[in-house]
């Protein structure tokens, strides 16, 4: 039995040896068909995008496996081209488990090249690119080749397409270049308010069909400007109102993005069309209003300018803005003490002016005269303007109206203006005296009225204007007491009156 076992053991050992020998022979056969890494010289079989690499297929090395590592699910082209010999090339892309993902299906119709034209990798990772000859192990061709992997588009989540390349500021163009590996270029834009901006992307070289996009701070798209296919070289978001102050991304990309084929240089511009209401640019008052004094300003991205108006009474005003340059279509707005709009003067029919005519303020206080443009923040017109706030008539409580014009004995001359549309003269009278008071216009348009008041300002009697509206008279008035009387000359309509001018005032006994 022992001897039998030994024989059996020897037989089994022999069989195992024979079997392993046979396996070794198979492996050698297989080696000729498989990749050369284990058998050939130390060739760097790593592929880099857009860099041609060289390889060789021979009867002993019927295939070569290259390694391609990608950071994202890129779309690419693989091209193998014979450089010597009679090689009929074939190329495939394999995943990590050697499963074929894409193939050229042999060589092309010239027999000299094989190409995987447009393949999107399933994800980031390491892939194998297998170059072999047509018919592999049973093929008959051999020769050298070059292999190039050209990225048509890196994936949208590739770091190249997600990184911010820097800041962009309004009015300062950015120049850049879009390529297959970086077809989405981001710039950070800081808005100081709910600004209205224009974003323009323009091709400056290459084939680029530009697109522009505005993203919020979470990366959500707010607006896209597509290629203008009229000429293909520009994309624009004409006027976009940012929702709030903060950080945005302005992106330059190409038509069809990941699926696009164009590339080239560009210029990207952000233009501030209208500052947001919260933009500090708008916060600074332009200055103070002085009645009947021309003020000047400019409307642009700062689409309104506020002028401070302080009044001592409920004055009657006319506010007028005139364009002085550009294409500005001005508007004027009067704001009350709490910033509320109290009246609004829109652009005139001629487009170059706006007026708030003869507006009566509710009382003394601080107001704002705002010069703006048609359509406000989203308007398109810009330019210089002149602003004039005219005092039509001082409010009744205005200190200017309380000042005495002086004493009168016989004759005086005076002037009625918008500011002083009423003149108070003092007259010393004696009880029982009978007097005539005569006012006559001596210049301009004045339509005068005249009252005589007691020393407290109570009206004793009023003179009637004459039919020609250039004079007024109080005739045969008997003074009720001795002392100071007030003779008040004023215009027809008081603070809302239309006339002004010089006058002569005569007080005396009635003419015989």
């Amino acid at each position: 039995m022992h001897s039998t076992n030994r024989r059996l053991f020897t037989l089994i050992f022999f069989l195992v040896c024979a079997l392993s020998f046979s396996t070794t022979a198979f492996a050698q056969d297989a080696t000729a068909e498989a990749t050369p890494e284990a058998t050939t010289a130390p060739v760097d079989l790593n592929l880099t995008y857009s860099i041609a690499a060289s390889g060789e297929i021979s009867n002993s090395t019927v295939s070569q496996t290259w390694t391609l590592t990608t950071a994202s699910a890129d779309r690419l082209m693989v091209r193998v081209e014979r450089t010597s010999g009679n090689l009929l090339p074939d190329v495939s892309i394999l995943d990590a488990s050697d499963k074929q993902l894409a193939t050229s299906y042999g060589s092309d119709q010239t027999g000299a090249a094989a190409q995987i034209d447009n393949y999107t990798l399933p994800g980031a990772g390491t892939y194998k690119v297998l170059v072999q000859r047509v018919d592999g192990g049973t093929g008959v061709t051999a020769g050298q080749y070059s292999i190039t992997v050209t990225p048509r588009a890196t994936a949208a989540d590739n770091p190249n397409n997600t990184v911010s390349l820097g800041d962009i500021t309004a009015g300062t163009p950015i120049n850049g270049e879009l390529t297959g590996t970086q077809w989405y270029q981001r710039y950070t834009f800081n808005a100081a308010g709910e600004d209205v901006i224009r974003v323009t992307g323009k091709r400056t070289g290459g084939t680029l069909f530009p697109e522009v996009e505005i993203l919020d701070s979470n990366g959500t798209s707010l607006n896209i400007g597509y290629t203008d296919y009229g000429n293909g070289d520009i994309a624009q978001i004409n006027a976009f109102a940012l929702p709030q102050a903060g950080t945005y991304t302005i992106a330059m990309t190409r038509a069809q993005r990941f699926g696009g084929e164009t590339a080239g240089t560009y210029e990207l511009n952000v233009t501030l069309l209208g500052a947001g209401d919260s933009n500090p640019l708008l916060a600074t008052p332009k200055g103070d209003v002085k009645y009947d004094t021309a003020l000047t300003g400019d409307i642009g991205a700062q689409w309104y300018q506020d002028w401070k108006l302080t009044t001592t009474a409920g004055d009657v005003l006319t506010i007028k803005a005139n364009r002085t340059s550009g294409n500005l279509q001005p508007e004027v707005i009067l704001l009350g003490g709490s910033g509320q709009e109290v009246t609004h003067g829109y652009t005139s029919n001629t487009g170059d002016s706006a007026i708030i005519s003869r507006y009566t303020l509710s009382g003394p206080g601080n107001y704002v005269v705002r010069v703006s443009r048609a359509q406000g923040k989203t308007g398109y017109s810009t330019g210089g303007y002149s602003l004039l706030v005219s005092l039509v008539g001082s409010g009744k409580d205005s200190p200017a109206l309380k000042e005495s014009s002086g004493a009168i004995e016989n004759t005086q001359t005076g002037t009625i203006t918008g500011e002083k549309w009423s003149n108070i003269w003092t007259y010393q009278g004696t009880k029982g005296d009978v007097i005539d008071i005569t006012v006559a216009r001596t210049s301009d348009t004045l339509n005068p009225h005249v009252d005589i008041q007691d020393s407290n300002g109570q009206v004793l009697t009023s003179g009637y204007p004459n039919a020609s509206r250039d004079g007024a008279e109080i005739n045969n008035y008997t003074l009720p007491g001795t002392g100071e009387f007030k003779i008040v000359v004023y215009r027809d309509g008081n603070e809302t009156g239309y006339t002004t001018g010089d006058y002569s005032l005569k007080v005396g006994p009635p003419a015989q």
Partner: protein
Amino acid sequence: MHHANKPFIKTGFLILFLFSLTALVVAQDATPSASGDSQALTYSVATAGEISDSAFSQTWTLTTASADRINVHVERTDGNLLPAVSILDATDKPISQSNVDQTGAAAEIENFTLPGAGDYKVLVQRVNADKGVTTGKYNLLITPLATAADNPNNTVVLGDVEYDKPINGEITATQWYQRYTFTANGQDVIRINAKRTGGTLFPEIEVLDANGASLNKAYTSDSGGTATLEKVKLPSAGQYTIAVTRASRFGGATAGTYQLDVMLVGAGEDNPMLAAAPGSVTYDTELKGSINALWYQDWTLTTQSADLITITVMRTSGDLIPQIALLGGSGQEVSRTNASPTGDSAAIRRYQLRTDGTFTVRVWRSQGKNGLTSGDYSLKVELVGSGEGSSNLADKGNTIASGQPQSGTITGVRWMETFTYKGTQGDKIDIVLDRTEGTLIPHIEIQDSNGQRLRSSALSDSRDSASITSYTLPGNADYKIVVSRDGGQTGYTTGGYSVSVSPAAK
């Protein structure tokens, strides 16, 4: 009776005299209340007058050529006159009037449209007329706010406007519609722009046909300074009117200077400008051209045979998005291609002409006549494979003998070469064709002296050689050994070769 009548006649004469005297006195009374001299007024020219107690009204004459919209302003210049003003028609019926304004110094009829062309009276008087108390001098000014649309000023043609020759003009209230004649040579697509250069003008533009019917309008832009018609497709060659006007036209209030530009976007198909062919195509020779308003260029291609061709056009400047069309002998389109995805090139690849003859290679732009791209291009028509019967493929009388290899090159132009071999009946030969350069996938054939095929090669596995082996010649004759490429005329490969004939290997 005669004598008796005399006192009666005297009495009647006296009565008549007294009556006429009374009438004269009444007329004199009436004279101060009526108009003074009825002088003519001129638009925009101030006229001075005076109202007195003896002439408390004055009547002026205004003659207009159309139903204009006007402003009448009277302003006191002296005295205490409280003026009032009226417009009267030919029957002295007031059709508009204004009393003195709130300053007492002026009266104004602010915005009145006359009922028609004709003579009108403008009556200036004092408030309360004969019962009024004021007097003084005044200025009277008639300002036209807009002449009527049919006023000659608005209907006259001011001249011609031509492509790329800006016109400078001025819109006023009396001439707010300015016409220019434009002559189109075809169904052109044009761009028209009017731009304010001064004043307050809100420009508008209009295109009218030869009958004055409106074809298109452009309104004032948001910025107020321009009006643009981007693409006007004129319906035919001929005369048009291009008008510059203002927003709201007759009712408008703006005026000012402008610049008018007309640009040819795309010449009409019938425009003679497009008719001139830039030249003839020579195979494999780069040609250069430009596309702009002349949005296509036709190149003449004359072929000797039904060739296989590839036509490629590449943008070389500008923003041209090129396209290509191939037109047949009667101008029919036989093939066309759009621009590549990159927009800078277009290609008709490997197109097989159906016949020899004259063709047109048309290079044009995306969107054709309506397109906006322009620029230079290069054009190349490659002969991929000469057609059967082409002189390019003619037998050059090459010979080959056993043991004396011959070499040559297969190209698209000459993708077939014929060698004459003098053979002897019963000889058994091998014919071997090897690629020596390029991509050539060779093919070989032996034909009799009439060109009838006797045997063809099989393609080798390596596709770099072809051979006919152990072929026994059927007679004493000249044989044709035809060297070509796989696929013949429509093949893809080219390159050098070596061909040999030898006795068949044992």
